[in-house]
Each structure stands twice: as structure tokens, then as C-alpha cells.
């Protein structure tokens, strides 16, 4: 191989050297390669992109939600200027007055439905492909928890506009929870912050929607994606070849019998 050109040497110096410096200390580059440069079955299709699509929708929700939080005010008190509740007035201001506020709020509002729909489509794909089977049971379990938290996000977020739809839909949602045996009435009273929705309910839902649920959701998504990366993408049920790269036939690692594992244990 010929000696490196001057240009190549400069690239090495400007780009690769700093990356090496970082990688030596953090394994960041190796980790990124481990995460991104994976073998996938030859016969995957658009169906396997639904999980990434759901993740993208979640990222959109995170960003638009963070921006909306800069202008939204979770208070049921009456705004002395508008004569309407503060929360509702702030939603009106976001929608009607702030530059492109209608767009950000619209993205957040419709993106919520998109996120839930994509979760269900992703779940259906995984179910129909049998991709929840060994060794991916924990992918399924964390996925179900993500779905449950996503629904809770929808429930808590729906109250925040503090209009009649939001109020009565939340009343019905709270009382639906209230009909659960034994714990139901206690759960309902917690969700309503008392026998009925009161002044504390809006801050509670805002806190759940803004901090607690997203934190749990992000943690679960990390676990979910780590497991996907570690175990690899499952082959479709009609596939004739094993998933991922081929391994020497002499020592098949556990789990490769039915082509279940990508084969690499993190190398």
C-alpha cells in the first residue's frame, strides 16, 4: 500500500486523532460502531422500521414538549387579564399569538397519536413475526411497559389544555380507573387529588407528564434498544437463513440453533 497522501495525513490528524483520543478514554467510537454497524437478516423489510419510527415520534414529542413547556402555565386559577383559567389562556397564547406556536403545539398534539399508533403497529409486527420469542422476551416486556407509559402520557397530557373536553375526558378516565377492584377508588382519589378534580390536579398531571413519566419512558427505551442491539434483529418467520452473521459451525453459541441470535456477544 502506498504511503498516505498529505491530504490523508491531515484528515487523520484533524479527525481521527481526536476520535482516537476520545475512544481510548471512553470507548465511544467502539460503542457507536457496536450500536450502529450491526448485521441484520438479509430479508428484512419496511416492517422492521416501525420501532425506529416510533422512536422518532417519541423524539419529536420530547423536543416539542420541551419547547411547549417554556410557554405553558399549569394553573387552574383565573387569569385576571383574560378572565379565563391561566392554563387555558396560555394554550390560547401558544396557539394564536406566539410565532409558529400553532405548529409546535400541533406537532405535539398529533405526534402523540402518531406515537401511540406506531407503538401498536410495531407491537403487531413483533407479534406476527414471533419476534418476542426466546431470547427476546425482555424486549417484549419492556415494550409493553413503554406502551403502558405511553398511554399514561396520553392520559396526563390530555388534561393540560384545561378546556371542557380535557376536563370531562379526564373525569371519565379517572373514574374508569376508579372501577378497578379493591385499589380502584384509591387510585381514582390519587389521580383526582381528592374526591373531585381540584386545583392540585393540573400541577400533578403536568409533573407526571413533564418529568416522571418521560424519565421512566426514556430509561425503558434505552433498555429496549440496548436489548435490540445486543440480540439483533429477528429473521422473518419465512426466512431460510439464520439471523445475522455466520459463525463457525464447530462451536455454535447458545441460542443460534434456530438462528435466534445474531451471534456476536458484543464484540
Amino acid at each position: 500500500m502506498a504511503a498516505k497522501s498529505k491530504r490523508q495525513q491531515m484528515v487523520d490528524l484533524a479527525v481521527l486523532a481526536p476520535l482516537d483520543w476520545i475512544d481510548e478514554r471512553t470507548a465511544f467510537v467502539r460503542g457507536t460502531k457496536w450500536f450502529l454497524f450491526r448485521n441484520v437478516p438479509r430479508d428484512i423489510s419496511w416492517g422492521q422500521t416501525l420501532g425506529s419510527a416510533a422512536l422518532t415520534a417519541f423524539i419529536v414529542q420530547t423536543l416539542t414538549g420541551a419547547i411547549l413547556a417554556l410557554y405553558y402555565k399549569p394553573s387552574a386559577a383565573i387569569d385576571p387579564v383574560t378572565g379565563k383559567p391561566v392554563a387555558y389562556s396560555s394554550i390560547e397564547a401558544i396557539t394564536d399569538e406566539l410565532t409558529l406556536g400553532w405548529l409546535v403545539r400541533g406537532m405535539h398534539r398529533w405526534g402523540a397519536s402518531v406515537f401511540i399508533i406506531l407503538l401498536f403497529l410495531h407491537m403487531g409486527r413483533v407479534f406476527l413475526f414471533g419476534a418476542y420469542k426466546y431470547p427476546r422476551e425482555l424486549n417484549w416486556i419492556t415494550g409493553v411497559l413503554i406502551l403502558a407509559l405511553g398511554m399514561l402520557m396520553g392520559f396526563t397530557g390530555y388534561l393540560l389544555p384545561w378546556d371542557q373536553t380535557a376536563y370531562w375526558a379526564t373525569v371519565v378516565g379517572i373514574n374508569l380507573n376508579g372501577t378497578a377492584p379493591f385499589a380502584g377508588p384509591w387510585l381514582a382519589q390519587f389521580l383526582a387529588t381528592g374526591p373531585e378534580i381540584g386545583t392540585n390536579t393540573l400541577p400533578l398531571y403536568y409533573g407526571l407528564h413533564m418529568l416522571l413519566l418521560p424519565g421512566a419512558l426514556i430509561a425503558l427505551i434505552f433498555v429496549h434498544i440496548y436489548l435490540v442491539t445486543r440480540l439483533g434483529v429477528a429473521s422473518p418467520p419465512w426466512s431460510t437463513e439464520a439471523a445475522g452473521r455466520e459463525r463457525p459451525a464447530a462451536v455454535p453459541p447458545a441460542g443460534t440453533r434456530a438462528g435466534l441470535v445474531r451471534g456476536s456477544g458484543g464484540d
Partner: protein
Amino acid sequence: MSDTGHDTPHVPGPSLWPIAFAIGVACLLLGLVISWIVAAVGAAIAVVAGFLWARDVTHDVRGEVPSIEPETRTVGDSASTGAIAAVPVDRPLPAYTRSRFLEASTLGVGAAIGAIVTLPVVGFMVLPAFTDVEEDEADLGPIENFPESEYVIASYLSNPSAGEVTRRTAFVRNNGQTDAGEPSFTILYSRCVHLGCPVQPNGPIDEEARQELENGVELRPVLAQSFGCPCHGGLYDAEGNRQAGPPVRSMDRYTFSIRNGRLVLGELYAVGNVSGTGASAQISRYPWSVPGTHVDGVEAWLYPIVPSQVTG
């Protein structure tokens, strides 16, 4: 391998009393903040434990060496096997080593600290929904505003300082007097006992006769012989009994009292069923519960304890 004298480092004898001593000191410091009794107990523990600790530590100085099995480990490093060859191989390993004790105590202390930090926070998050939730009585104004045998839609603020979010609506009917000569009112809570939507009276509302009283009270007479819920089609008769749709019990009612000729709403209660009408109605009364929950029959067993029975 016996102790050959003062050229080997002196190690005090093993003792658990420092833990008790630390607890005593912690108790003492806590007591300085809370109460002198706790401080006294803590001081006593610290003194006793400190004495016992000192006794343990000075054991070997005083001649009585405790018979403690020396700690041994198997060493995987082949280079050092010669050094430990003198140790008899058939001696049983100690069942509980110092490192395992330290590991367990670190985990235990960590768990205790975590619990001490977490539990009050969780309590702060959850408990306010269950404490001090009783609503004030609501004064609906003079009873002359409630004509006999007619329903009036009365809305009021259950907590005027909290504002409109506490606006409640009741359907009030003056039944005249019972056979015993007592005044009788039928006061239905507007929330549907299916899932809590706002029940509407089925009949024309006399907006002309609408009255606004002090404290946000609003009265509107209505000609209603039944009540319907717009959400899921629940239907109730004039006594609040379920006629159709998904509700699981009769409409909730208020207790009431009459003070200085004014109608005052008391607490809400759940109603299993009402037989009879008006002043002669027989009401099966239960403590209030969340909409959608049964208060009578077998299904009520699913809700053995509800918060309103505990916190009032």
C-alpha cells in the same frame, strides 16, 4: 505462627459494639432536635455501648484473648501456593467472611438511606389526595327559592377560595313536609354514577327565573321528570333511580340542614336504590364512593374499603 511480641502490629479484638455506639450518638444528635427524652436514651445507649466497646477492645490486654477463627481464603495464584503451604488444607473456611459482612452492611445501609429519602417523598406525593379532603357545607340561600315539587338546578362553589374548579351542581326539589312534619328535600348530585359526567335534567330550563346569589350560587328552575347523561346514555328517573344505560347505582344525594330559613348542603352519600317518591321515599344509603363502583349487592365486595369511608 504465634504472636511473638511487640514487633507485630497490634490489632484490637473484633467487636460489634461500635455500631451500637454509633446508633446511640445518632440518637443523641436526633434528640437534640426532637426532644430531650430521645437525647437521653441516645446518651444512655452511647455510654453503655462505649463501655462494652472499650471492654471488647481491651480484652487481650487484660489477658483473655477471644478464640476467633482466623480468616482464610483459597488463593488461585500458583506462585503464592508455597507461602500458604503451612496452612492446613482441611480446615473449613469461615462461613461468613468480613468482606461478605461489609458487602451486606453496605447494601443494607444504602437501602436504609434510600428508604429514608424516598418514603417521605412518596408520602408527599400521594397523601395530600387523602387528607383534609372534606368539603365545606354549601349555603344555597333561602328555602323560599325552592318551590314545592319542582326541581331547581343549583350550582355553587364548594370551596370559593379555590375558584371555579370547585363548582358543583345539584338538582334540588322541595318535597314539602314528611308525615312527621319535618321539611323534606331531594338533593341529587349532578355527577353520573357511571363515570362522572355531568347529568342533565330532561326538561325545559326556566332561564327567565334564573337567580344569582352570593358566593357564586346560581339557581335555575327546571321542569324535569328524569335525568340523562350525555356521555354514555345513562338515564335516571325523578328520584335518581337508574332507568337505563350503564350506571350501577342510583344518583348520589346530599344530606341537608335548614338554618335560619336557608338550605345548607351537607355531605354526599351514595344511594343503592330509592323506593317511593318525594317525602315518603325509602333511601338505601351508603358512604359515598367513586362513580362506577357498586355500593350494594355482591359487586360491592370488590370495593371493601374506599377512601371516603376512611378519611370521611
